[in-house]
């Protein structure tokens, strides 16, 4: 078991410089550790795992991982991943993105990857801000919060990431937080195993930008907020809607079996080859 034998370190690139690039206390490193634990528990071969990212702080994750890794362009990681997955359907393709990368510039690709139900595992680290560029508001910044480009308060409704994925057609949708790291790796494992488009929204925080401008304190303080604001799906089901306002609901929100895109395309290939060989017979 990972935590006892400390196999996590075997999944980090030994030739890469550590400590990692993220700010002290950033939740992205916690997500990376959970991802490693999930892969380790599943005993996946490293050659069979690909991690693809977009641009932003979360985008800096793949380089640390000893898998097939790609750091692509802003918002387009799911499109690159679609090509790779079609070329090598046996690969476990994991796509890590921030909230701005996945839902703003990447919104269109997010919707279509879910719509196709292609067997990718998307992990969106949602810290409600554009951290890398200094704290501009993102599609998930709460109303009235301050940001460097919302000095008078944000007046845009935040995007419900999980709802969007479910409606667009994803097979498996779950949410966790970086406080709930132990639960997170189980969800990631489920997501990778699921045949179809899986989304894990991980609520994190950026104390460096969002936290500072909204006076929310240190990484420890913001971690504590996650603990206090979150509630399990099972518990939330028992509460009336008005009591859920401001709460982060954790757990599996959607888990359905639907036809997966690369499997369906394989059927297309069989049909095409069948009709071609029929033509040869009759001609």
């Amino acid at each position, binding site marked *: 078991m990972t935590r006892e034998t400390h196999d996590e370190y075997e999944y980090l690139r030994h030739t890469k410089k550590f400590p990692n690039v993220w700010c002290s206390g950033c939740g992205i490193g916690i997500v990376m550790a959970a991802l490693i634990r999930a892969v380790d528990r599943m005993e996946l071969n490293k050659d069979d795992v*690909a991690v693809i990212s977009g641009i932003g702080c979360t985008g800096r994750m793949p380089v640390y991982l000893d898998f097939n*890794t790609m750091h692509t362009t802003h918002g387009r990681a799911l*499109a*690159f991943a679609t090509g*790779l997955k079609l070329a090598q359907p046996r690969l476990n393709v994991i796509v890590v993105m921030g909230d701005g990368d996945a839902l703003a510039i990447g919104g269109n690709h997010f919707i279509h990857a879910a719509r196709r139900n292609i067997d990718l595992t998307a992990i969106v680290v949602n810290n409600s801000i554009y951290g890398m560029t200094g704290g501009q508001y993102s599609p998930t910044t709460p109303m009235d919060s301050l940001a460097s480009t919302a000095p008078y308060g944000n007046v845009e409704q935040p995007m419900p990431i999980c709802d969007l994925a479910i409606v667009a057609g994803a097979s498996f949708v779950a949410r966790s937080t970086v406080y709930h790291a132990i639960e997170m790796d189980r969800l990631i494992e489920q997501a990778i195993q699921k045949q179809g488009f899986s989304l894990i929204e991980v609520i994190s925080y950026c104390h460096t930008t969002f936290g500072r401008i909204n006076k929310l304190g240190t990484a420890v303080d913001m971690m504590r907020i996650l603990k206090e604001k979150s509630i399990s799906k099972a518990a939330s089901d028992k509460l009336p809607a008005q009591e859920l306002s401001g709460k982060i609901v954790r757990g599996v929100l959607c888990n359905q079996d639907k036809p997966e895109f690369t499997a369906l395309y394989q059927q297309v*290939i069989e049909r095409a080859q069948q009709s071609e060989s029929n033509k040869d017979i009759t001609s």
Partner: protein
Amino acid sequence: MKVKLMQGNEAVAWGALAAGCRFFAGYPITPSTEIAEILSRELPKLGGKFIQMEDEIASLAACIGASVGGLKSMTATSGPGFSLMQEHIGYAAMTEIPCVLVNVQRLGPSTGQPTSVSQGDVMQARWGTHGDHPIIALSPISVRQSFDLTVTAFNFSELYRTPVILLMDEVIGHMREKVELPEAADVLRVERNGTSVPPEWYKPYGDTGSDVPPLANFGTGYRYHVTGLFHDQMGYPTQRLDEIDPWIERVHRKIDRNIHDITLFEEDGTQFAKTVVVSYGATARSARHAVKLARRRRSKVGLATLFTIWPFAEELVSRIADTASHIIVPEMNRGQLALEVERIAGRRKVTRVNQANGEMITPQMILNAIEAN
């Protein structure tokens, strides 16, 4: 393959398959759509993959992802889509991932006239994406050549680990000519130069002396990092000048040192002619006819037809400029490749024959320029 009446776009599709293309991701756009439609039908028959992505940006991204996964990949588009693809052309150039991008040029700018021809994307093919990067762009003048240059495009992209643009135009794309295409088995294909060192020793951007690092496919036991950031030989992001400077030199050198193999062209009577026409694409058809007419009238005129647009055939044009006193450059734009000719030709007179309204430049227009001397 037997003799067929075939459309240029269709020849591109067959050329891609003959070159070993097994992945196409694209978005419909006039006048390139036939390429996508044909490949959607033919690729799965060969076990290849076709996908219509949600936009052109995603299309080229998917091609690059599939290429790293080991499949020769292609996309096809026209002006507006070509504009959208620029970021990923730069990404493919920076990460040195092979892919082929067909741009069937139509009249622009903007929506322009989807069913009319132009050669308006020549400079965009060179400099559309930001930053200094080399690029290869080829332009066929016939249906048969559309097949051949598509194969060449794939071969160049694997040989030099670079994106290659096939600069078609709407006339060549939609015209039909009689062709007899070679069997796929008879076509010369360059296969990916995989690495032959043990995985722990593999450097995805290491210099092996040829300036082109061998490319191992994802999922084959070689795990490495690909990024659009400036990177070192391991593919890790770097800000060190002693890693960035050599990379810049190597990536430009890999094209420059092979320029003789890359710049494809045809010369006809250019050696001692005082007047030479330099043309490409559909306009080369008019130029050929104009030169024929001029010679019937005893004009001593040469014709140079460029099949490689980028890198520019500097040596050829320089040589022509040594002996010719008048160089004519007809193009369906307001003078794009002419800028390169003028740069090289120095004090020689360069006449532009331009039209950028969707109509073809006629042989008469070029003949007028030849005889206006």
